[in-house]
């Protein structure tokens, strides 16, 4: 942090001012002229929080995607299908046991097995042939989407999370002052806050795993030079299977979390595949930090786009992607 301040004093200063400005906007009571200029404070703060929590969800989905890509150079176009499958499995288990957390755990574990199976049965056979691997995952996603449609029909499923996650939490943020002088505090859905906490938790756990454990060290070595890692006596196939398991498991985990925050229905697979694609294109392939930054950018862009420019919302996301590609084709945190 100090290094950054010294190396880029101007940029860090601008960044700090920007952060201070946003924090100020969140906590201050807005004067009338500001409300006139950019609308009510409640809309702004809600949009900001929606963007950040959505970013949490995007990070959960995209981290698995980018992890798998980083090590295996495998663009898993079936990642969205894994998200959706995780959601359905989680729903079934949660309905069966009556406990939402069982659903969450079951979908994580089930998708881990799916991931290992895919790695062992499919990708191992076409190692190094990127294009063919990608085509196979597209084929799998077509079939998977259709079979899931057959099994769970076109209905929308809604989870019922435990009581304490349901409902809204009052935050110490004043949105407006009533004429009587009472302050109106912002209420925000508890589950979306939980989603953000879960994403931060998963992010930290991944970071610790990759940077502080021996297996994580092997994975990082594999990202840099796969052949060298194999030559030094590590069973690369085992590492591949493990990484694929974690990546797929995270997709399943995200399926339940995202399905609870929003809903689960056919077509969501494409939506989250797109989200993962854009997040990792922006953030940089194979970088967990990049996925976090990309998710934050895209989540915020999407929510602000929806709130302030309803019919051109997608364009903002898209412009971010193009701008990043123009300046840094490998993504913000990607290695060239």
């Amino acid at each position, binding site marked *: 942090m100090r290094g950054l301040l010294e190396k880029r004093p101007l940029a860090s200063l601008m960044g700090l001012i920007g952060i201070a400005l946003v924090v100020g906007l969140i906590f201050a009571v807005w004067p009338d002229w500001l409300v006139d200029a950019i609308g009510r404070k409640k809309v702004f703060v809600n949009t900001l929080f929606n963007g950040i929590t959505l970013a949490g969800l995007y990070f959960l989905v995209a981290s698995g995607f980018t992890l798998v890509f980083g090590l295996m150079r495998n663009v898993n176009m079936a990642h969205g299908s894994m998200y959706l499958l995780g959601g359905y499995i989680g729903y079934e288990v949660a309905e069966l046991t009556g406990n939402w957390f069982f659903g969450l755990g079951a979908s994580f574990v089930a998708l881990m097995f799916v991931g290992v199976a895919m790695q062992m049965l499919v990708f191992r056979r076409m190692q190094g042939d990127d294009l*063919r691997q990608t085509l196979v995952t597209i084929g*799998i996603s077509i*079939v998977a989407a259709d079979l899931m449609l057959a099994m769970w029909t076109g209905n929308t499923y809604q989870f019922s999370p435990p009581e304490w996650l349901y409902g809204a939490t009052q935050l110490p943020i004043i949105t407006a002052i009533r004429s009587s002088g009472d302050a109106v505090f912002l209420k925000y859905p508890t589950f979306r806050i939980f989603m953000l906490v879960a994403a931060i938790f998963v992010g930290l756990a991944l970071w610790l795993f990759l940077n502080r454990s021996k297996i994580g060290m092997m994975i990082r070595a594999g990202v840099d030079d796969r052949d060298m890692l194999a030559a030094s006596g590590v069973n690369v196939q085992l590492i591949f299977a493990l990484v694929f398991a974690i990546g797929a498991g995270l997709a399943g985990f995200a399926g339940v979390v995202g399905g609870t925050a929003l809903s689960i229905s056919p077509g969501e697979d494409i939506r989250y595949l797109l989200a993962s694609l854009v997040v990792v294109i922006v953030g940089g392939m194979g970088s967990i930090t990049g996925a976090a930054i990309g998710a934050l950018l895209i989540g915020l862009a999407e929510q602000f786009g929806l709130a302030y420019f309803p019919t051109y919302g997608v364009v903002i996301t898209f412009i971010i992607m193009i701008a990043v590609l123009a300046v840094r084709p490998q993504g913000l945190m990607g290695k060239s």
Partner: protein
Amino acid sequence: MENNTQNFWRQQVGPVQIILGVFLLAYPFFTSDFFTFQIGAYSLLLGTVALSLMMLAGYGGMVSLAQLTVAGFAGYMIAIFGTNSAGVHGLDWPIWILVPLVIFISALFSALIGAIAVRTEGIYTIMITLAIAVAFFYFTRQNYELFNGFNGFAGVSPPSVFGVSWRDPVPFYYLTLSIAATFYFAVLYGSRSTFGLTLQAVRDNPRRMNALGYSVAAIRVFAYFLSGIIAGTAGVMLVWFNGRISPGSIGVDVAIDILVIAVVGGLKRPIGPFIGAIAFVLLENFAIDLIDRERFNTVIGGVFLLIVFLSPDGMLGIWERLRARFTRLGKTPPPVKTPEPEKAE
């Protein structure tokens, strides 16, 4: 040069090609309107869109999932600048300005996609073009000012020119056939042209071409432009074929169908996409007799997986392998295998 051209055509046209040509020309005379329009013309149209992908992927090494997006863009432009019954836009431009203009801006649109995509290589291209395709799909669905949102445009029909109603099955079939044949031969001939060879060289070793002084990015973007002409023309025909266009017609599932068609047919030769398209359309129409209609995607996805697993060159590759085996049985020496292109770093 003259001699070369003659040789080229002599190589391409054999008895099989002549029989095929006669068959295609005579096709409407011995089939019903359904087979002429829904099977024949539709296969040719999908084949043409897939041809634009084959051209990029086979000769340029760029697998783009945004070809249908270009076609859809052309369709939307026809609806916006031409006539539609949705009551939004419909500027009623005369046909001889409308069609060339739409094809040209579609090609520019394709070049724009190319300019974004060529900054990256290989599998990244698939990701970026897919992202573009999905983003365009969501954009048309959200945007009511330009694209009339979820409903899209209906009542888009080809005009009557020279007293012929071009929406009728037989004229439409011949129009489609002539377009498909033109682009097929154009791609075939173009692959031997200077530009075609340059593009293939860029595919095989971009770094060396760069060192030789070629602008790799410019060559690739121009290839996107050319493929945009093909996809745009096919898009104009597709919107006339369907009579309507909406976000559903340019969804990801349809975009992936185009990839499936091109890969199943074979990405090495221009005839591949058409073979794939015929197989696809036949499956789509008659799989209903074999299995539940609802499960069509499982079948097509399964076929796609099978082809990718068994033969990376698609059905053409299977055919060629079979032929090679038969010729070996006939005790003639096996055909000389062309060496695999050198993989670039």
